[in-house]
């Protein structure tokens, strides 16, 4: 009984993460019913992954930029521009894909360096620089393409957008075995890792997660991962872009929570002056964040172009808004300092499922936009409401919130944090990851 209460208490302390995750599940279930089961058919699940991959790739970079207290409005135009560049390189100049892809990523890095220079070293607000960039790179896209689409691309590049890992059973089996192996292996790896991390935390007496909660959570992840594995395996197997995305999510989650660079990013967003006076090279960090964003935007542009098999003048239009929405739905704070890569992935998936589900239902873009807008508003509104409820609302209230330090300052650590900010800060990379992270975890190990 007390274990249950303890778990519930822990749950409320992580309301934001749990909430966003539950929201995703509810939306999936809703559309599963509304579409008579089409949503979770193997083919559609595969589509969902492939269709949203480039937004998710952008959302990784975007949430990092937002954590540092900036914004990037230009990523859609950059993605379009890189699509155009790849078209010229591959189709017109006949470059091999293995030269063209690194070359495109390099162009993306240069574009990011251009913007990062103005933002970090000249000191123009990112909103202005990237608004300018949105126009500049859209213009360059049109110039590069001479207002005409470039097509077709060779199969090797197209695989990046719509390709699958090879079927090792040669098409004779109902399930695609390579996917099953990856999925089961990934699940085992996650289980092993969470248990190991929990053990380490116990050893250092840092554990604050009730056993019942840990068990439920871990079991849930495992079931979810195996379900997705099964769904993918019963269609055409693992999309190549999913592997790319999984590697990115794992790498960037680790980067943001465990590396000096990631921690400096949070510090800059939380209090720029304090970060500067602590010897953090704030300009260099900001510059690198935008270079990184440029590279990820380039990758997204390549994936998008590969999927469409054409570089188009309007390619990437509106991507910036979807990726910004994903980051905010996923719990990032407008003023910076708060947010997670995993959260942004959930945010992106919510947007993706909404898009996909409404398209299946035959709703027009008019209603789709209306509903997506409302979801963004509600998600962030819930955040604010939740913060106020836990007493951290207005800045005035914040100043006095905890003047009386509890006299019984407990020896063993317990979750003192009530706000999402706090939770995000406390959450450790994998084991104590916010629940919101799990479906991504589920996807990432295929």
């Amino acid at each position, binding site marked *: 009984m007390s274990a249950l209460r303890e778990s519930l208490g822990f749950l409320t302390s992580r309301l934001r993460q749990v909430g966003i995750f539950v929201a995703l599940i509810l939306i999936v279930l809703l559309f599963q019913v509304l579409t008579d089961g089409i949503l979770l058919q193997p083919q559609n699940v595969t589509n969902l992954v492939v269709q949203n991959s480039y937004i998710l790739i952008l959302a990784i970079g975007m949430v990092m930029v937002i954590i540092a207290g900036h914004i990037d409005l230009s990523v859609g135009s950059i993605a379009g521009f890189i699509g155009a560049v790849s078209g010229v390189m591959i189709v017109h100049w006949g470059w091999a894909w293995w030269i063209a892809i690194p070359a495109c990523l390099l162009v993306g890095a240069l574009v990011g360096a251009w913007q990062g220079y103005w933002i970090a070293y000249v000191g123009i607000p990112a909103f202005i620089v990237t608004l300018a960039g949105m126009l500049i790179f859209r213009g360059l896209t049109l110039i590069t393409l001479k207002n005409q689409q470039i097509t077709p691309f060779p199969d090797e590049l197209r695989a990046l957008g719509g390709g699958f890992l090879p079927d090792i059973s040669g098409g004779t089996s109902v399930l695609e075995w390579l996917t099953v192996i990856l999925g089961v292996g990934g699940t085992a790896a996650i289980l092993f890792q969470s248990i190991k991390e929990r053990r*380490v*935390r116990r050893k*250092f007496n*840092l554990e*604050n997660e009730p056993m019942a909660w840990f068990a439920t959570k871990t079991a849930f992840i495992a079931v979810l991962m195996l379900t997705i594995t099964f769904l993918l395996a019963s269609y055409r197997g693992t999309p190549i872009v999913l592997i790319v995305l999984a590697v990115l999510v794992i790498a960037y989650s*680790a980067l943001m*929570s*465990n*590396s*000096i*660079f990631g*921690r*400096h990013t*949070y*510090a800059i967003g*939380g*209090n720029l*002056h*304090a*970060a*500067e*006076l*602590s*010897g*953090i*090279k704030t300009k260099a960090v900001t510059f690198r964040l935008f270079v990184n964003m440029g590279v990820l935007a380039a990758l997204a542009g390549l994936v998008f172009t590969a999927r469409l098999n054409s570089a188009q003048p309007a390619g990437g239009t509106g991507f910036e808004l979807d990726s910004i929405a994903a980051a905010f739905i996923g719990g990032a704070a407008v003023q910076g*300092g*708060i947010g997670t890569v995993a959260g942004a992935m959930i945010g992106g998936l919510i947007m993706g499922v909404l898009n996909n589900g409404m398209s299946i239902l035959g709703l027009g873009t008019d209603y789709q936009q209306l509903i997506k807008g409302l979801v963004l508003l509600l998600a962030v509104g819930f955040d604010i409401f939740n913060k106020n409820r*836990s*007493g951290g609302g207005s800045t*005035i*209230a*914040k*100043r*006095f*919130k*905890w*003047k*009386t*330090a*509890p*006299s019984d*300052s*407990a020896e*063993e*650590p*317990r*979750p*003192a*944090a*009530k*706000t999402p*900010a*706090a939770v995000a*800060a*406390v959450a*450790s990379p994998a084991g104590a990851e916010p629940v919101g992270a799990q479906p991504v975890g589920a996807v990432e190990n295929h």
Partner: protein
Amino acid sequence: MNVPILQMRGITKTFPGVKALQDVTLDVNRGEVHAICGENGAGKSTLMKVLSGVYPHNTFDGDILFENEPCDFSTISDSEKRGIVIIHQELALSPYLSIAENIFLGNELASRGWVDWRKTNLEAAKLLARVGLSENPVTPIQHISVGKQQLVEIAKALSKEVKLLILDEPTAALNDEDSGHLLDLILHLKGQGVTSIIISHKLNEIRKVADAVTIIRDGRTIETLRLDQGQITQERIIRGMVGRDLESLYPERTPSIGEEVLRIEDWTVQHPQDHTRTVVHNASLNVRKGEVVGLAGLMGAGRTELAMSVFGRTYGRAVSGKVFKHGQEINTSTVSEAIRHGLAYATEDRKHYGLNLIEDIKRNVSMAALRKLAKRGWVDRNEETIVANRYRTSMNIKAPSVAAITGKLSGGNQQKVVLSKWMFSDPDVLILDEPTRGIDVGAKFEIYTIIAELAAEGKAVIVISSELPELLGICDRIYTLSAGHITGEVPIAEATQESLMHYMTQEKE
């Protein structure tokens, strides 16, 4: 004369997991200056927020009677309508608006939605005269000093026909002269029938103005001392606040001073915006191993500017001069260079420059020396928690765990986090800028003890402080600054408040 204007009875206010106030009683008589004393975190500000309606009437237990009528305020404007005005520690003025606009902000003199500028400026001028300011009401707020801004806040309160004025640490950011003005004004207003409640840490101020002192400790009323009964003495207030007698305000230490660690020569700094102003002129000073050196000076003397320009040029432009460590010239032109050479600077402004308030204790502690916890760019978070826990214990940081958000800690505990951060960077020279500002007596003693321990470990410590008794209590040698010049260097044996003040006000041509 002893007519009660305000009676607060049995006030209990609970935050999730914390009882901030427990059965607090406060009686304020009409026309008196009533001081509220207590350590940071004792619940003084919470009590004032209860009174002024920041916390609506149904979020706490207990009764408030103002002029013998019950109060059930839901917002600040409800309490202002009854004549209760609170002035917060951080001023709530809009820097780009004029003095007059600020005074009538939210309360504009207007007819049918259009501001009557003539009346606004005229009335503002009258109010300014009442608080003893001769400034032009159209002057933008950012162009007047903090001391005057504080007076504008009071003028603003007067415009609301204030009966009970609440001042939350009004002199925390003021120099002695401005503090003196402010206290005189409070006494002057008292003569006009305005009752004041003043929250303050400065016991000499309380002795100067207060007719009564209510002491709050751990969310409870300890006692109310009355001047007319001869109860207001420093010893008694301190005893009430900390619950024990402070035999000494400063820890005993026997300095063991070694060779010179840091020397600054001919340091000159220009104002970052105004190129005609030189903020620090040819300053030279040194500090030795195990020594605590004080930097005394009035506001605007250039102490913080000197320290910050040395620490990675974080202040000023056209900085010139040399810094030597152990006799070798070093480059301190960026913060990371300065840290690499073993310098640390703990800012006077914790909230804006010292802490990431939305992050927890451990991440703040590790912020300046994350590399020490990392291998090849990856941070060992278990080690980080262990380190933070070590400082939480050794510095006596009162928090449930190192995962507590620093924005929620009291000023003293926040300061301990800032000190932990710099101690973890393992510097040879620590520059502590106003290390005890806004901190209660008990925590101050702890900070002094930490400083003494750092010196005993062989660190060189430079302390910047506006409180002369503090410098006299902890330093081995004191430099005085006046208008950017170093005007004196006084060994502790020869230093007195009078001699220091003499140097601090000395003009150099």
